[in-house]
């Protein structure tokens, strides 16, 4: 199988409209989660990561007419812009789009956009046509692992030799649709989420988009990160709750390690899903212990972004890539007091450390689990 390199990337979030701004905010422990009034919550509101529309419009007007594109489309198009601008020819580059709910807000609001835009395939066409991609776009809509699974699809296409390059873009909004739904499941924390903490009480939602170019060719004379192992496994347990044994996640990790041809001891860092729900964080602790990864430094960056749903695993992979390149571990924001049934090595302060291999995981509704192994290659290889 061919090697698959992670090349250019962009993150669009409340923390900034470039990867650089995002990494700098995370490094400086700045969170995008802010209090917002909302009648669905007892205390009158909740902490959430919202991208300011005016700021987005201003940035987007540099590349297109903001009145012609929905908020989510603007986020995705902005994320793609610096990547696509560097590619002379988009022929035979598949565009893989990850989202859970796309433009679902158009169904509730009296919007100026036609209702057809709510179809994910229509959203995909808008994004694809804007830049003139030739291949038919592919949407991956697989709950909270979508962003990572879209990378897995791209990786598999490239490793098998089907394509030389692929571009992944992911995004989701915080709509009343998802707020009301997660609230009905009592899954949202009114305060900023506290991954792996004793008094964690649920997720924070966040808006975000990200884009990433994957290629069979490295960049020369710089350090490169490859995606060397991916696997997904269903828990076959419950559609809205994780397995109590962490079976699906454990199996995903084993298979991803197998594909990367490394053992668990070689992992230097874990970027966990860490949503801060009671059940998710506990399930992850069990799965990581079963895999012998309990001593590996681990973080969740949900405290900076909230849960960006279909974008989350993509944003977190990009942060992981830069952690590896910068030899930096970022602290788990809002972590306080440990009470999981198994030990984990939570990163509590930023740290410089030589890093080579990282594991990124994600889990979601429908019982889905995903594991990816990233490797820092030597110069130009």
């Amino acid at each position, binding site marked *: 199988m061919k090697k698959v390199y992670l090349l250019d990337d962009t993150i669009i979030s409340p923390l900034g409209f470039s990867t650089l701004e995002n990494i700098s905010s995370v490094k400086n422990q700045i969170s995008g989660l802010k209090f917002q009034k909302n009648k669905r919550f007892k205390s009158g509101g909740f902490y959430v990561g919202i991208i300011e529309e005016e700021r987005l419009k201003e940035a987007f007007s540099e590349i297109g007419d903001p009145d012609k594109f929905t908020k989510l489309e603007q986020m995705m198009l902005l994320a793609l812009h610096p990547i696509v601008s560097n590619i002379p020819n988009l022929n035979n580059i598949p565009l893989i789009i990850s989202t859970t709910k796309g433009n679902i807000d158009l169904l509730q609001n009296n919007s100026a956009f036609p209702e057809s835009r709510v179809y994910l395939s229509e959203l995909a066409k808008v994004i694809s046509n804007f830049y003139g991609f030739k291949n038919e776009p*592919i949407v991956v809509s697989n709950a909270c692992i979508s962003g990572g699974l879209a990378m897995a*699809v791209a990786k598999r296409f490239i490793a098998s030799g089907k394509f030389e390059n692929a571009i992944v873009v992911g995004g989701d909004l915080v709509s009343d649709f998802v707020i009301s739904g997660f609230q009905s499941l009592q899954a949202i924390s009114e305060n900023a989420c506290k991954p792996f903490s004793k008094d964690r009480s649920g997720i924070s939602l966040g808006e975000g988009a990200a884009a990433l170019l994957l290629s069979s060719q490295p960049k020369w004379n710089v350090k490169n990160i490859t995606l060397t192992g991916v696997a997904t496994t269903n*828990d076959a347990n419950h559609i809205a709750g994780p397995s109590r044994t962490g079976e699906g996640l454990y199996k995903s990790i084993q298979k991803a390690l197998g594909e990367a041809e490394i053992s668990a001891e070689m992992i230097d860092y874990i970027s966990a899903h860490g949503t801060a729900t009671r059940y998710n964080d506990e399930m992850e602790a069990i799965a990581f212990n079963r895999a012998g990864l309990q001593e590996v430094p681990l973080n969740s960056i949900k405290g900076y972004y909230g849960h960006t749903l279909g974008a989350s695993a993509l944003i977190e992979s990009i942060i992981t890539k830069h952690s590896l390149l910068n030899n930096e571990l970022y602290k788990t924001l809002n972590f306080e007091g440990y009470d999981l049934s198994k030990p984990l090595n939570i990163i509590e302060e930023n740290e410089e450390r030589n890093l080579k291999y990282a594991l990124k995981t994600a889990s979601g509704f429908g019982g889905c689990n995903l594991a990816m192994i990233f490797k820092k290659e030597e110069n130009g290889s």
Partner: protein
Amino acid sequence: MDLKITDSVHIKNQKIFHGKEMIFSAKPSADIIQFLKQAYKYLNVSYPKFHKMDGLSKLGILGTEVLFQNRTIHPETALIFSNSSSSLETDKLHIEAMGDIVSPAVFVYTLPNIIVGEISIKNGLLSENVFFVTDKFNAGLLLDYSEILMEDSDVPAVVCAWIEWKNADYDVFLCLISRKGNLAFNKENLEELYHFENE
């Protein structure tokens, strides 16, 4: 590699086809709710959870019941599913409830991959999953991704599927891909099977 379309199921217009043979039909006037009820009874499924599912999941469960009949299914059989409307019919139900009391039992079905979870639970499949959304049935994508999983990731078999539900219409097409059978797994055969209508 010699991959075969081992078996297929098509559910459309109040009818269920196993391969090219019609095994069940409801009255043309039957709406989706009536059809699902009658088909469930006819196939003798006996799975109480079925009644809590949304239309898309019910269609998927019925389809796999037929596809998996009289067969041992390997727990690592991958599920590669696709459609065009995602979970839009259930999304609309959730939106109706948003002004009033939101039901978590409806909300959990507002993701298309839930159907893949339901099939995994019913059949004990701890396997690779993906849910693609494409404009229309995309034989090339299902073929490519199935081949890659079976050739590069040691996946023993794949169910590739198109499972669409929009307004009153539903269109379910499931194929079991493995190394057994006589029909070659290629784009032409997939298209031919998908477009087959027993008029």
